[in-house]
């Protein structure tokens, strides 16, 4: 089968569509908010985007491996509930450190449970994680029935105000993620991930440990969701057992915009990061444009449909013009 030039380009650079969209969204946002590039404005935006960026990276890794994780939002909520109740507004830094470690373990444990069901018991990813998302959401409500608690201002200030060399903290986190990803892509694990997501039967026939790879993607996703939960807690400085809910669909949207197909085996991490930023910028644009907030949901949905349909639309147009 002959591949179109767009397909070839997106194979080599899965984030191409995201990059175009990012530039467009950035320009539109900059027109409405001229000081967008000033360090403080940049920081004010990026610190809001960071939780979704972290969650979307984990989601993208699951999707590359051929799965999907609907429970990430609930994991964020659990982590937020734990931190807000256990550290509290007047907590000291050592408790905070311990509790963040606990939060990461909880996230990985939740991911491991997902992975156990999906990789070893061979349940459907979408159903399994949808079901476990209720377990985790229930757990969050059990820990924190009513919004409350929080994190000490010294910690939240570190998250909110850190700017090193004109660049906000979020940029360094992104750089670190990209660096780790660049290394992972050059390891066997990286290859296995794409092989399992691309064609699990063929990978198995070749001797790839398919189940272990699938399992690992959910653990990574749980870990990234826990990191997202920590970021979310430090951003808001308060506890709310439903704070993670919107992140699930947003993380899938970000991954899809970022060139990670729902069918697996392709994509990367840079695209979903851009995808998460795009979603944030769109929210900005909508609030600056003074339109009703339901437009945000509408635009998000329109973008995910467009991103999914893009290759098909291009093929259709090509066939018509031939």
């Amino acid at each position, binding site marked *: *089968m002959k*591949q179109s030039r767009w397909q*070839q380009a997106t*194979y080599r650079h899965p984030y191409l569509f995201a990059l175009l969209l990012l530039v467009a969204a950035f320009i539109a946002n900059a027109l409405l908010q001229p000081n967008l590039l000033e360090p403080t404005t940049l920081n004010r935006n990026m610190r809001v985007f960071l939780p979704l960026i972290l969650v979307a990276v984990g989601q993208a890794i699951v999707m590359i491996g051929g799965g999907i994780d609907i429970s990430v939002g609930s994991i964020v909520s659990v982590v937020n509930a734990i931190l807000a109740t256990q550290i509290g507004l007047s907590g000291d830094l050592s408790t905070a450190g311990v509790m963040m470690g606990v939060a990461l373990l909880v996230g990985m444990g939740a991911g491991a449970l997902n992975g156990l069901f999906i990789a070893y018991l061979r349940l459907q990813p979408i159903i399994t994680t949808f079901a476990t998302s209720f377990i985790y959401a229930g757990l969050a409500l059990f820990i924190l029935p009513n919004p409350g608690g929080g994190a000490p201002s010294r910690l939240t200030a570190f998250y909110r105000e850190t700017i090193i060399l004109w660049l906000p903290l979020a940029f360094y986190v992104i750089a670190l993620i990209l660096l780790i990803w660049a*290394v992972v892509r*050059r*390891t*066997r694990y990286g*290859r*296995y991930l*794409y*092989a399992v*997501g*691309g*064609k699990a*039967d*063929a*990978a198995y*026939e*070749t*001797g*790839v440990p398919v189940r272990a790879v699938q399992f690992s993607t959910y653990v990574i996703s749980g870990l990234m969701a826990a990191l997202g939960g920590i970021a979310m807690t430090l951003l808001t400085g308060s506890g709310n057992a439903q704070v993670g809910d919107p992140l699930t669909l947003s993380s899938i949207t970000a991954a899809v915009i970022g060139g990670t197909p729902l069918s697996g*085996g*392709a994509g990367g991490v840079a695209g979903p990061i851009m995808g998460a930023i795009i979603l944030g910028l769109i929210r900005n644009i909508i609030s600056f444009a003074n339109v009703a907030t339901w437009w945000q949901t509408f635009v998000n949905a329109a973008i995910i449909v467009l991103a999914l349909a893009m290759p098909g639309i291009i093929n259709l147009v090509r066939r018509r013009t031939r």
Partner: protein
Amino acid sequence: MPPLLAVRNVAKRYGAVQALIDASLDVDAGETLALIGANGSGKSTLSKVINGVVAPDRGQLLLDGRAVRFDSPHAAKDAGISTVFQELSLVPQLTVAENIWLTREPLRRGGLIDRRTERRRTEELLSLFAGTLRADLTPDTPVFALLPDERQIVEILKAISVNPRLLILDEATASLDSRQVQRLFELIGQWKAQGTAIIFISHRMTEIEQIADRYSVLRNGQTVGAGSMKETTASDLVTLMAPETAGGAVERRRASPDALATRRVVLQIEDLRTSVLRGVSMQVHEGELLGIGGLKGQGQRDLLLAIFGGVPWSGRMTLDGKPVHFTHPRQAMNHGVALVPGDRAGEGLLSIRSILENLLVPSWRNYGFPLRMKRARQDAAAIAARLEVKMASLDAPVSSLSGGNAQKVVIGKWLLRNPRLLLLDDPTKGVDIATKAEFYRLLTRLCEEGTTVILYSSDDEELIGLSDRVLVMHDGRISSELAGAALTTANLVAASLGVSAGVAL
């Protein structure tokens, strides 16, 4: 010295089908063994037993004289047995290099993949087929962008990259062009010289004669002969694969060619072309049972689909003297043409729904709105009685039926529409003998009642036993027509393989 690999008395059963009864073979280091047999003789199953995809029910594998058991393809690969699979084992999204070295990537210290070495080794492998591949095919080309022949070559390179002791080539030449095949044969010569044993499975007699040192013949799951290629001829091998036998399970009186010629022509096709077919012309008479034979994948399925309007085609087609050009199966159905698909479970039946519903799926629109259920039920009951479907009631789910009765439902649902032309796509594949016999009686009766049948079957004996005439297809064309006294299994096998020696046509 024991042979590198010895297979002893292997048997394997898939449900109702006994794929292997008693298969044995020996292969030594540095030789090429041709594993040959007609369609459905068990070649692929035997190769799957050897490479660990399938566990045998009985029998032994001896590697260097020691009994071995492979629980997975991976275990066989660790023992030095590498297979070029018919169903490709490549991941489309990965590149050529990534696919070839998957799980065996060269690593640098620290665990990172040494992409330069990987690239160089891939280029070395690709250079084996230099000149027969596109110039822009590099180690970094993603596999989804490759053509079928290029994928097959990558598959071969992946199998050989482990330096196997035994290489199984299962129909590996089927999608290669002649230059690529010649190149592969030169390479097989080199690998043999290095001591690799090769099992070569192919339908193409000329290739077997060219490359094999020894042969082993399978017939109906049994090894019926083995020896040196030097001491045999192509026609001897054909006789081994398909001996002259009387009839077999199938009993149907053939209409003589002369009698057929006096009947009305139902379907006439001239110069039919599709992406697969390359100019097919034929005619079928009323009440005739026309067989379509040949090796698998020579365009038989496309021919049926084209008649049914399932694939785009060019050429001329007349049905009952009127020119037709169906572009959608619905049009063909409205003209009394029905296609019974080969994959019963997948395409033919809704297995959890009732027999009644399944029978009526193509005909609901004849029963108005709201559906006249009483009449529908009467019609379904009539057809079920006519086909002698053994069932608890019309409301029982299809899954409660035996294979043969389920097959009757597949055909019955089309008979409800009173087709004049019935197209059958390998209808008895994976069906047990008793069911087949019932099915043959049904076809015989349908033809007597004036229905015209075009039957494609991968079972040669069935074709010979049932058909009034058989058209043998090769490479999208009709290569020969067998009728009357020339309609024998041996002739059909020989014609399929393109051998004419000892064949009285």
